[in-house]
Structures are given as C-alpha cells and as structure tokens.
C-alpha cells in the first residue's frame, strides 16, 4: 500500500483495516503521534489528512492511502519550528508533553481555518484533546500569541 507521509512516498505492507496510528508508529517509526485511548476520545493521535485533523487511532490506513498525511514530525522541523511550536516553547506549555503533538496538530488545523480564533473557537476545537497535566491555560495563551501570524501555508506534500 502506498502512503504519502510528510511529503514522502512510503510503502507499507499491512492489512487495509489496521489503524493509521500503529502504521505510523510501528511500520514507519514515526513515534511522535501518540496512543492515549484508541477510541477517538483524547486527541493524542491527531494527524492531518489532506489538511484536516483526524484521530489516527480510528482511521483505517486503507482509507487514507494516497492522501497527504502530516504528522507532528512534518509540522515543523527542529531547525524551523512551526509558529505554534515556537509559541508552545515560548509559553512553557508542555509539562509531561505526551499530549502535545496531538494538541499542536489540532491547533494547527484550527489556526489555518481561523487565523485569529476567538476563545469560543479555541474551546470548540481544542476540547477534543485531553491534557492530563492541565496545560490548557497555556495552550490558549500560545494560540492567541500566534493569532494573525501566517500559519496557513500548505503543509509539505499536501495536495
């Protein structure tokens, strides 16, 4: 099966109904995408498929073959952080950090749609992502901090 992940073509040999999450983590070694609940309840596994945020724990890999998949590894790079990643660092957002790749992928989808999100828009989109460490106040601050800065550029490999 051919996948397009972070702009690269990847071949995987798995049944079509395997959750995308485990294909990313175990077949492709992209462990930035996290397992938290396995049932679309926590948001830790959030990735973008053709620019839209999806819970990879409940997406069958066969359903997204050929579509542009972006994971946290493709959101920005260590040399050039995505503005949200930079804001996260600036505001000391992460605690344990486990939920943060999912939070960032969700926030990236939010600011592409609403470059200057209101608190209500932040609530509506971000409430799907649990942070057990309670970093919500800082996530909110960090999102507001990038409001208006250009974050809507197409992701690498997105069609």
């Amino acid at each position, binding site marked *: 099966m051919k996948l397009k992940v972070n702009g690269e073509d990847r071949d995987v040999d798995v049944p079509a109904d395997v959750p995308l999450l485990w294909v990313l983590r175990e077949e492709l070694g992209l462990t930035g995408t996290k397992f938290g609940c396995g049932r679309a309840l926590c948001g830790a596994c959030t990735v973008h498929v053709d620019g839209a945020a999806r819970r990879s724990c409940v997406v069958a890999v066969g359903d997204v073959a050929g579509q542009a998949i972006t994971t946290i590894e493709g959101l920005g790079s260590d040399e050039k952080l995505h503005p949200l990643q930079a804001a996260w*660092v600036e505001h000391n957002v992460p605690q*344990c950090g486990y939920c943060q790749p999912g939070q960032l992928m969700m926030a990236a989808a939010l600011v592409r749609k609403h470059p200057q999100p209101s608190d209500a828009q932040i609530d509506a989109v971000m409430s799907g992502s649990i942070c*057990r460490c*309670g970093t919500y106040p800082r996530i909110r601050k960090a999102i507001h901090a990038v409001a208006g800065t250009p974050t809507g550029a197409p992701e690498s490999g997105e069609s």
Partner: protein
Amino acid sequence: MSEPQAKRKGVGRRRFLLTMLAGTGALVVCGAVRGGAEQLSRAEPSDIDGAFKPNAFITITPDNRVLFALTKAEMGQGVMTGMAMLVAEELEVAVDSIEVFFADSLPKYSAIDTHGTGGSASIVGGFVSLRQVAAAARTMLIAAAAQKWGVAASDLRAEQGRVVEAAGTRSAAYGELVDLARDQEVPQEPVIKQREDFAVIGKPVPRIDSRVKVTGTAEFGIDLRVANMTRAVMIHPPRPGETVISFDAAEAKGMAGVIDVVQTPRGVGVVAEKYWQAQRAAASVTVEWSTTVGDFSTEVLRAELEASKRANARVVRDDGDVDTAMSGTVIEAVYEAPFLAHAPMEPLNALAHVVDDTCEIWAGNQGPGLLQEAVARALDIKRTNVLVHTPYLGGSFGRRSHPDAVLEAAWLSKAVGRPVQVIWSRENDTRAGYYRPQCHTRMRAALVDGTVTAMTADAQSQSIMADLDMGALMPVAIPPRIRKWVMGNASRLIASNAVLADVLATEGISNHGYAVANQRVTYTPFATPFKCSWWRSVGHSFNGFIVESFIDELAHMAEEDPVAFRRGMLAERPRWLAVLNAVAEMSGWGKTELAEGTGRGVAVVEAFGSFAAQVVEARVEHGEIKVDRVFCALDCGIAVNPDLVAAQIEGSVIFGLTAALWGEITAQQGRVQQGNFDTYRMMRMHESPEIQIELLDGPHEPGGVGEPAVAPVAGALANAVYAAVGVRLRRMPLQRAYDEWSARQGTPKA
C-alpha cells in the same frame, strides 16, 4: 512521604563525601555487559574520553560540553529544568548549555538522596546536595587554573563556563582545564552560594525539554525500540486478584505475527511482532478465571463504613480532654471520597529483555530501585543483574512507582526469549488498581460562642502503606536480613493498625493548622481486593477536602465569614495566614460582588512543606457545576523557577478539579465500572477555569511544588457550591453528590 528538611540535609552531606570516595569508573561497553560484571551496565552519554568527572553526576569535556546525569523522573513537573538550574547556579554555566541525560539504575548515582521521584521532594532534596556536587566541580576547575597560572585560587572566579582572573586579563574555558582539574583535591565541604548571590535560581528560565516535546522527538517509554523486539497485549483478570484457570489461544496462535500466548501470574500475555497484531489476536483468546473475589462492590463498602463500629481504630492524635469539651452545640458531618485511578496520558507500558540471569528494562518509572527489587524477586535473580533505563514519563502522578507492567514484560520476555514491550490499553490502565483509597471520615466539633472548643475526626480508609511493598522501598544499604523481615511483616503490622499507623491516611487531618484546644483523630484501615497507592498529594487529596469543608461548615454555624473564621483559628500560624490573606486579597473576597448565583469558596492547607490557599468561584447551571475562576496563593519557600511553579499550580488545580467534580472508580461484583475517557471523565479545555496565581516570596528553603496545590481545590469548590446554591456536598465526586441531592429534591436537571 516528606521528611524533615534538616535530616535530609544531613544525609545529603554525608553521602556527598561518599560519592567522592566511590570514584567514577563506569563500564564502557557496546550493549549491556552481562554476567561476571558487578553490575549490568551500558554505555552512557557521559562516557567521553579525557573528560573531567568530579563525581558521578557531572562531566566536563575538553571541548567544553557539560553533561549532567539526572536521577529524577521527568514526568511533567519540570524537574529536569529545575535540577539543571541548580547545577548551572553553582557551576556558572548557562542552563541551556547543559546536556541533561537520564541516569541508569547504577549504584554510583545513589549518592544524592534516593534514585526515586515522589513526595514533591526532588528540588527540596537536591537544593543543597546537588548544588554541592556542582560547587565541587567549580572549586576543582578554579584550583586547576590557579595551579596553571601560579596564582591563588582566591584571585580567580568562575563565570559563563570559564575561570577568570579577577585582576588580570587571563581566562580559560573549562574544557582547557579538565586535565589539571582531575588531579585537584575533592573539596570536603564545597562552598555553595548564599541566597543573595543567586543568578539563576528564582528566574523564570524556559523549560529545557520543551523543544523535543513540541517536535515529537521526546522519547517516552512507549516510543522506545530495541533490536528484535516484540509487542504484547495483556488480558488482565476482570476482577482484582483473579487468576487464570485455563485459556484457549488456538486461533490466536495461528494469526499473523503472533509469537506466543503466555500465562503470567497476572493474566495472559499475547506476544506478537507488532502491537496491532497482538491486539487482534488478543480479541480471539478466551480465558477461564478463578472466582475468588466474590461480589465486592463500592456501594456495599460505603454502607459498611457508615455502619462500622471502628473496633480497630487507633488514636493518632489526642490533645486536651475531648470528651469533656465535646458539649454545647455539637456539629457532626460525614465526608466521603472514592477510589481514583491516576490516568496518566501515556498508558502504562514497559520493555524488558531477559537474558539468562539478567534483565534489562526500559520503562517510565518513579523508582528504578523499586523495579530492580521487584524484578529480581520475580525472576529470582540478583538485584544488580537488573538494569533500568528511565525515559521521559507521559505523566505518572504516583502510578509509575508500581512495577506491575514491568513485571509483565519481564515474565513475557523470559517466556519468548526476546525483548517484549507490554503496552496497556486505556482500559487496562484504568482497571489495573493501585488506586487512591476510598475513604469515609466522621467529623465532630463543639462550638461555644463561635469558638471551636473540641474537634474529632474518625477516619476510615484503605491503607496505602499496608499495600506498599515496604521491602522494595528500603535503601539498598539495608542488610538483606532486615529487608526480608520488613517485607514479611511491615504490611501486616500496618494493616493490623495496632503497632504502626499509616501516617499517609491522616496527613492533613492530624496536623492541620487550626488552633483547637481539644482534639482527637483516629484512624481505622480496611482492605479491599484493590491495591491502593499514592495519588498526587496522597492523603491530602481527600483530607484537604474533609478538613476545609468542615471548617467551612463550622464558620457558617458560627455565622462568621469563612475567611475571617479561619484567620481567627490561624493566628499563631504566620505562613498559613499569609497565603490566606493573599488569596482573599487577590480574589476580592468580601469586596467585589459576584454575579447572582455564583459563589466563592476558600480553602487553605499545608502539604509537602508548602502552604497553599485557594478561592474558587463556582455556580450551578442546568444542574452542572461550573468553575469560572480559581485563585491560588502559594508559599513554597524559594521558588527555584517561578514560571514552572505556576505551571504546576495550574496543572494541580485542573487535576484536582477533575477529581473533585467527576473522578470515581467504582466496582460492582468486583468489576471496575470505568474504562476509557468516556466513563472516566477528564477536565477539558472548555471546562477549565481561569487561574490566577500569586507566589509568596519567603526566606524559607524550597518546599514541594508538584502536589500541594491539588489539596485545597476540592474543599474550596464544595464551599463555593454551598455559597452559590446553599447545598452542602460532602461526598466526592461533587457532581454525583449534587445529582443525588437534586434527585432527592425531585428537581430533575433542566
């Protein structure tokens, strides 16, 4: 878990000297060294040729790299940054120039307190000892430069990674001095800075682990990979304590990627090449379980506790003459709290590789020594033949101090002869036990002219200490004979309550700050098929709710303002008073009006050497309790990093509110009713209140930070609900208590 600070300091110094004597010879090898070796060991990042290693923790290389071996678990509390700041302060280097790595479970690291993380004690314990370690390195580098230049050490100082001559123009980077530094005498009493000289401590230095955590490159236990590894799914007993009678894995064994299906002392492990293969195969395994537990139910337990005569009660505190003083207006109230799971965001997991009589482990944990002890016993191998690697922890809150997932990985690795990574499902994680204890506490007090003249607390809860593996908790230095005795007897003695009382059960209730002349506290333990554990803020997590709710009730009975009433009883307690006054001020207590239907509640506690006061603003909307704002004043002594302290308060408030509003683990016929986040509810972004924080800057050495602010939240919230709607909620979770109250009123939710 916290001990007096003075004692800790003394131990720190004595051990510091021992480190120096112990030397630093690490085994440098490719892969683990097994058998024959004194200690199973792997190469560490600090194994660098020609480096200067004044002790096990600090390494300075000829090309000016500074490495620091962290023996604490970074589980979100920011200990990596905090400890690096302590090193930077004394070593005179930039915090972000220090390469911090997680130390393996090697004896050379046991010099600075214990190689374990908990009790909000890392910074408290390291504040002196770790700075001494860094100061020793600095002193030796300065001595090296003095020798090189033929000047007195007193004419030199260290700054920004260099030794500088005060008068002249000479300076040398640390890297240039490593060879000479190695030969300098190790200072027996390294001089550490006075508070007024701090340049790093007290500054809001950015977290040093943020970057790896926002790019997805931070390695948690679940992300680790080793050659030839396999993955496993555990099928746990549906009810605690049940064991496997038989299982049928014929179909599973034929499925793609499946290596084996193995019976363990705790259920059945399905081992496959990939996790998703193990998951599929596990669905086709059927297991017949022993049925030894009967129909344990938390509702039945509640009724039993209510009816209990507490024959086994032990007096924990008895001041004055309670029996005489308990007269006049006597108020009585019963408070309850449920079992709770920790629910770290990263489900428990562990990777183990057993080869002959050795075992290597990679797993997030709060105590490598505990894992070594538990695995050594389970596999009947030497403790020194167990090597533990500690990665980043995706949360823990106490849960990762228990070895259960690690033991499963070790058993399975031994069975299949390959490295095995056990990954629990969320349901496994929620149902596997080691819960915050359920409790039932009866409070009584006598009020005479608005003064509390007597107070009693009769606490019943499952004993955490009786459930702990006390033998594994002891330092390695304790002789095996004594360890064995403790293992065999400690739990029994604590469970019997006759000889040893569980101090965790009544912390915060036997030592609250309120002046009451006649007081008695009793504690009665009970046991259930569940195991209990410390859960962020431990006994304070329920006792804060109980004491602060009850004091509030007394204030209302006395027709006094809850803040003024507390002030009166805390007159002799300056640090309590200071945080109480600060939080009253910042929240506009008694000054600014709130919207109709919104109430304010206050609570103040001392926990883990820090003082925390909170005001919660809450209301009830269509039957749902809503929290709008939380104010918190904290005195944690010197705040090493004020912004990280603030982050811990924010996290603690949200963690505490989650538990106060919704958290409960219940059992019916022995089965846990909760499984995933749909049934074990977490606070989310839209429910999370605005949080305002004030840190009180005092002269005191650091107190704990990760837990104290959890303790007051539930009480402050219950008091706010009372202020808002006049309903006194005495049972957590408060939303359930409110729903039951509504049902009794016949006013269903709108």
